[in-house]
C-alpha cells in the first residue's frame, strides 16, 4: 500500500517529468494560458529562434489592456496598449494557438474564460503569466502564476522548472455560511485570519462542508485570492458540482472520453489520512460579510466591526504599518466600518465578474438607485450575453450603473479605468494595495452584494440589512 496522497500530491506526481537529486523538478504543463501582457515571452522565442512547442495546449485572450468602453481595437485609447492587444492577435496567427480575440464573444478575462470554455480541467497543471491563475484550482487543477521568463520557457518547452515541491496547507471551513454571506467573505475572512504571508509558497486545498456546498463560481472567487494569502495555488477537490459544471463545455472531453475522464477525476480527491504541512480550520457560521479598510487584503474585517486602533498593535513596526495604512486610506481608528464613505463602485475582475456575481449584485440593486458612480464589468463576452438574456443589464442600468465590455478594467487601473486620488472605491477585485486602482485611490475590497449595497447607500453597508428590506 502506498502512502495516502493529497489531491496536490497526485497531480504533482503525474506531471513530474524529471526529479533531480537536489529536489528540483521539471513539471509538464497541461494547459498554458496567455494574456495581452505575454508579449515579452514571444520576443524571447524570436530571439532564440525557437518555435511554440505545443500550440494545442496554449490558449489566450486579451484582457489587461482592452477597453471596457468598446470591444474593439479602436476603443483602446493609447497606441502602446493597442499594440499589445494587436501584437497578441499577431502572435496567435503566427504561432497557431487558440485565441479569443476582441470581437469574439468568448473574449474576456483569462481566468473567467478558462473555466467557462472547459479549458480548465481537474487533475492537470495549468500556468499563466498572471498571479491569479490560482483561480483555476477551483476545478481541481494545480494552477499557478509564473513570471515572464517562465512563460517563455513554457512556450519553448511546455514544461517548467520548480526548484522543489511546494509545501501544502489544508484550510477547512466547517459548518455553513450564514444568509447574505458569500464566498468572497469566506476568503477575506481566511486572509484576515492567516495573513498575507499565511500561506507563503504553499499549495492550499480548501476543504470542508462550506466548499463542498459552494458553486464553481464561488470556488473560483476563493481560489483566485489564494495568492493574497501568499500561496502559490489554491484548489478544491473535483466533485459532482465540478463535473456538472464542465459537462458540455467546448474544450472539455466529450462522449466516451468524458466518461473516462470523469472516472479518473473521481480518483483525484485527497486520500483519507493524506498529510499536509499546515492545517487551519475556521467556523463558517461565524463568518460575516467582510470589507477591507486598509492597504493589504489582510486588513479585512466584518462589516459589523471597526477600523482598528494602531496603538493596540503588539509591535512598534505593526503600529507604524497600520498608522500608514489608515493615513493613506484617510480613516481614523475606531471608526465603524459601515460608516466608511464610498464614492465609487466597481463590480468586476477575475475574482467576481461571473454570472452568479452579477445575479447576486443585481438582486440587491433591483428597485434601488446608486448614489455614486458605479460600473459593472462582466468577466467575458459570454457572461455579458447571459446577463443580458436574463435582463440583469437593465437592472444595473436602472440602478444607475454603467454596463461595460469585458476586461480587467478598474482592477488593474491600467487602461484608463482609474479611481481618482482620495476616492473611496468599493471594489469586488482582489487587491487594495497603495496605488493599485490609481495613484492615491482608496480601495475597499468586498463581495458583489456588499459592493451593490455600498453603491445604493454611499457608504459601506451590511448587505443583510438591505436584504431584510431596510433602507
Amino acid at each position: 500500500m502506498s502512502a495516502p496522497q493529497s489531491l496536490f500530491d497526485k497531480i504533482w506526481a503525474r506531471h513530474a517529468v524529471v526529479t533531480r537529486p537536489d529536489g528540483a523538478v521539471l513539471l509538464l504543463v497541461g494547459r498554458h494560458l496567455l494574456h495581452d501582457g505575454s508579449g515579452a515571452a514571444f520576443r524571447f522565442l524570436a530571439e532564440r529562434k525557437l518555435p511554440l512547442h505545443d500550440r494545442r495546449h496554449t490558449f489566450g485572450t486579451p484582457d489587461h489592456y482592452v477597453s471596457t468602453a468598446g470591444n474593439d481595437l479602436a476603443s483602446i485609447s493609447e497606441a502602446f496598449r493597442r499594440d499589445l492587444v494587436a501584437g497578441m492577435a499577431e502572435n496567435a496567427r503566427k504561432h497557431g494557438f487558440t485565441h479569443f480575440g476582441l470581437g469574439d464573444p468568448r473574449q474576456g478575462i483569462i481566468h473567467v474564460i478558462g473555466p467557462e470554455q472547459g479549458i480548465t480541467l481537474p487533475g492537470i497543471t495549468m500556468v499563466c503569466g498572471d498571479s491569479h491563475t490560482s483561480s483555476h484550482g477551483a476545478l481541481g487543477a494545480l494552477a499557478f502564476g509564473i513570471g515572464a521568463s517562465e512563460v517563455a520557457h513554457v512556450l519553448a518547452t511546455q514544461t517548467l522548472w520548480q526548484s522543489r515541491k511546494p509545501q501544502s496547507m489544508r484550510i477547512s471551513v466547517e459548518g455553513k455560511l450564514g444568509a447574505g454571506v458569500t464566498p468572497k467573505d469566506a476568503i477575506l475572512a481566511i486572509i484576515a485570519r492567516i495573513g498575507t504571508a499565511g500561506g507563503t509558497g504553499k499549495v492550499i486545498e480548501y476543504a470542508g462542508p462550506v466548499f463542498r456546498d459552494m458553486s464553481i463560481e464561488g470556488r473560483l472567487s476563493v481560489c483566485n485570492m489564494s495568492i493574497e494569502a501568499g500561496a502559490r495555488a489554491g484548489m478544491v477537490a473535483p466533485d459532482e458540482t465540478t463535473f456538472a459544471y464542465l459537462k458540455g463545455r467546448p474544450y472539455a472531453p466529450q462522449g466516451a472520453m468524458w466518461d473516462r475522464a470523469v472516472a479518473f477525476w473521481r480518483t483525484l480527491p485527497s486520500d483519507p489520512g493524506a498529510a499536509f504541512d499546515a492545517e487551519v480550520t475556521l467556523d463558517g457560521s461565524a463568518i460575516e460579510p467582510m470589507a477591507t479598510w486598509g492597504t493589504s487584503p489582510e486588513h479585512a474585517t466584518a462589516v459589523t466591526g471597526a477600523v482598528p486602533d494602531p496603538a493596540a498593535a503588539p509591535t512598534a513596526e505593526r503600529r507604524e504599518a497600520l498608522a500608514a495604512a489608515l493615513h493613506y486610506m484617510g480613516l481614523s481608528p475606531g471608526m465603524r466600518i459601515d460608516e466608511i464613505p464610498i464614492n465609487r463602485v466597481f463590480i468586476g475582475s477575475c475574482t467576481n465578474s461571473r454570472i452568479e456575481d452579477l445575479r447576486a449584485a443585481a438582486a440587491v440593486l433591483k428597485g434601488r438607485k446608486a448614489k455614486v458612480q458605479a460600473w459593472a464589468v462582466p468577466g467575458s463576452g459570454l457572461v455579458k450575453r447571459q446577463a443580458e438574456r436574463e435582463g440583469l443589464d437593465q437592472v444595473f442600468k436602472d440602478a444607475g450603473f454603467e454596463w461595460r465590455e469585458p476586461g480587467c478594467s478598474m482592477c488593474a487601473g491600467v487602461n484608463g479605468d482609474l479611481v481618482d486620488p482620495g476616492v473611496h472605491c468599493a471594489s469586488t477585485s482582489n487587491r487594495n494595495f497603495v496605488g493599485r486602482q490609481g495613484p492615491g485611490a482608496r480601495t475597499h475590497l468586498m463581495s458583489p452584494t456588499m459592493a451593490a449595497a455600498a453603491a445604493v447607500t454611499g457608504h459601506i453597508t451590511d448587505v443583510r440589512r438591505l436584504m431584510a428590506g431596510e433602507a
Partner: protein
Amino acid sequence: MEPFSTVDAKAMPLDMTNVDTDQLVPARYLWRPRQDGYAEILFHDLRSEPGFPLDAPAHKGAAIMVADRNFGCGSSREHAAWALVDSGFRVVIAPSFGDIFYSNSFKNGLLPIVLPEARCAELRAALARNPGAHLVVDLPAQTVTGPVGVNDGFSVDSFAVDPLRKELLIAGQDETGLTLSLADTIKGFVAGYAEAMPWV
C-alpha cells in the same frame, strides 16, 4: 545574464514590510518595453518621499538591499525584478519574499537571500547608522558578511539557496538550454501522459 559569484557592494536598508510589486513598479508602467529600462520606475511613487533611502547620496551605487518581511509580494510581474536589476541591485536580503518575485529574481540574475528576521533588522539598523557601508555576498560559499569596514553589527551569516538556481546563476545561464537538452526524456514522458489522460 551576467555570471554571479561574489558581490562586495554598498547595501541599502529599506524599513518597510510587505513591499509589493505595485510599489516596486506601479501597474501603470507595465506596458513599458523591456529594452527602455526600468531604473527610473523603481519605487516610482515612493522614492521622492522624504527619508526614502533609494536616492540618498550615500546609497548611490548600492547593489544590495536589506529589506523586511514579505518583500515583493503581490503580482507575478517580472518588472519588479527588472526595475531592481536595472537600478544596479544584484542582491535583496529579507526575512521572507513574495513567492513569484523570489523565483523571478533568479531568472534575471538577482539573488534573493532569506536571513532571519532579527538579523535583517540588525543589519538594517547597522546600515542606517553607517550609510554606504558594504556587505559581501558570496554565492559559492552561501554567506553574507558584514557590514565591513565599520565596527557595527558585523557577522557572517549562511543562507540557503536551491542547488539548481545556484548553478544557473553562477553560470549566468537560463533554464531553457538545460530543458532543451532533455528533449528526449520529455517526449517519452509526454507519450505516457497522453496515454493515461488522452482527453487533455
